[in-house]
């Protein structure tokens, strides 16, 4: 693997981190495996694309995507998932049904063509890093991934909300018993996790492009990240993203026909021996 491919792996890992960190926040705290997360990513990408092309502003596209997807997350959580609380299996399958609806809705609104979110002028072209000429935008994605990691780390470790979320991951009932409105913490987490999917959609939409089955692909990668990293662990998502991002690039370079196997083979074996992932804790 040369430097260029290494960068490809790292930038893909950064994108995966943004998407999967939202997924793991929701999975860790609410115990909901949100299989609509991929659909939220794609929907966010489409909305970001529309806003960015209409207004000509990439930043506004990002804000629009995050707000819109948080709103859709609100509908999913408060409108549908509240009816099946406490039943993991029904939650998973309901979110899967929601994903089908969202995908079809996206197909109605944006059609089956593939779109690429326009990159702002500043981030076009390339620059020289570590002896290779590399696209500036993908470096920007890498930086964004690191910023999101730092932001989430700060939020989780240095704010009251973060302390509540961490406590909720360990034992939601105890937190509630100590007088905290855990429902509100749950809701905020769900909205934050959804918004991260939306942000990921915009970021990914600019270099992987947006098309009708992109949601399933990103969902499967996110699942792999979270399964490897462990439920609800930020560091786990970081390590999982790096592993999956680099393995994916390695797989594509060395065994293009077995690229999927290169990621999911190790993951399946890991899960068989460490069912809770590298950094997962028993519930």
């Amino acid at each position: 693997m040369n430097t260029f491919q290494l960068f490809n792996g790292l930038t893909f890992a950064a994108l995966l981190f943004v998407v999967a960190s939202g997924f793991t926040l929701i999975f860790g705290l609410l115990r909901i495996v949100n299989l609509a997360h991929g659909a939220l990513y794609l929907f966010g990408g489409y909305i970001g694309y529309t806003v960015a092309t209409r207004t000509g502003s990439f930043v506004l596209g990002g804000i629009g995507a995050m707000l819109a997807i948080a709103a859709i997350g609100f509908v999913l959580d408060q409108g549908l998932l509240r009816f099946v609380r406490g039943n993991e299996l029904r939650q998973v399958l309901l979110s899967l049904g929601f994903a089908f609806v969202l995908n079809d809705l996206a197909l109605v609104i944006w059609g089956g063509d593939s779109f690429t979110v326009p990159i702002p002028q500043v981030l076009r072209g390339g620059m020289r890093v570590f002896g290779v000429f590399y696209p500036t935008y993908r470096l920007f994605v890498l930086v964004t991934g690191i910023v999101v990691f730092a932001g989430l780390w700060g939020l989780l470790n240095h704010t009251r909300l973060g302390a509540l979320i961490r406590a909720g991951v360990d034992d939601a009932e105890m937190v509630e018993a100590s007088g905290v409105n855990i429902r509100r913490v749950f809701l905020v987490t769900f909205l934050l996790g959804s918004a991260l999917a939306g942000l990921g959609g915009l970021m990914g939409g600019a270099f992987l492009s947006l098309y009708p089955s992109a949601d399933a692909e990103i969902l499967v990668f996110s699942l792999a990240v979270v399964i490897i990293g462990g439920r609800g662990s930020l560091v786990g998502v970081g390590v999982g993203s790096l592993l999956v991002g680099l393995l994916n690039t390695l797989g594509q370079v060395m065994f293009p026909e077995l690229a999927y196997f290169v990621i999911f083979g190790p993951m399946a074996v890991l899960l068989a021996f460490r069912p809770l992932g590298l950094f997962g804790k028993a519930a």
Partner: protein
Amino acid sequence: MTTIATQPALQSRTFAGMTGRAVAVAAIVIAVAAALPLVLSNYQVGLATEILIFGVLAMSIDILAGFAGRTSLGHGAIFGVSTYVVVYATAQAGLSPATSFALGIAAATLVAVVFGLLAVRTSGVYFLLLTLALGMIVWGICLRWTQVTGGENGMRGDVRPEWLVSHRAFYWAVLAAASLVSYAMWRFVRSPFGLTLLGIRDSESRMRSLGYNVSVHLFVGFAVSGFFAGVAGALYAMFNNFVSPSTVALAQSVEGVLMMIAGGVGTLFGGFVGAAAIIALENVVSSYTERWQMVLGITFILIMIFTPEGIIGTLRAMLKRKER
């Protein structure tokens, strides 16, 4: 659900493990099903065939979901592997339909054995995620391994032997096969071994302290379930004469699970009811609108919120309320 275990033992006169009433019901259902082609059009016979095949798939998923408490999202892949092998063996390797059929089922069982080895240590949502991921591996391989699988374009092949080419003859053959494997699955879940799966579903730790090797029992359950999914997949190869990555895709597993749930988790024969409901809905909806995916999603959501026990489960609950 405990009724499954307690009902039969009380009856004294049995035939092949079934009570007189069960034999009568089974005979009537099969007779009616066998008479259907006499009144249906060729197109409708095709739909009925599809319902039988997917009913078998839904039942195979129910063996794990309803009786061992493990919902698999990888059975579409096991089903599809069988389809792939049958089509490949007849069209590319030139083997006879019977040999291909057996090879397809063997391949599916082998895949289920590998899945089972990895999956039996997990439960709940993790089981679901792991089987989903394993299914995605199969899908990825079918999509990328172009020389063998034909990649995105899939493979075509005339799989049916001469005497099964007509719609009716094939329907009757599938009906015979579906009846046979349904009976086998029914015997399996009510066997002493099947009851240990039920025990694992209700309390894994209790079964363990009673001295049962939970992992081995789940593993065997998974392999058996995979075998039956393989039968469905092989029948599907003959039905469709074509296979592509969408046959092994997640959507296939999801539809199987949906049919199983629509019929009723743990009702086994509900698989056919669920398959009939979903396939009928698909056909009605598709004639009015192209938005089948959306309707499927909404159906999924509504079932999860309102009737998680499925059609048969809800009917049973209503009957019980009346009896009181």
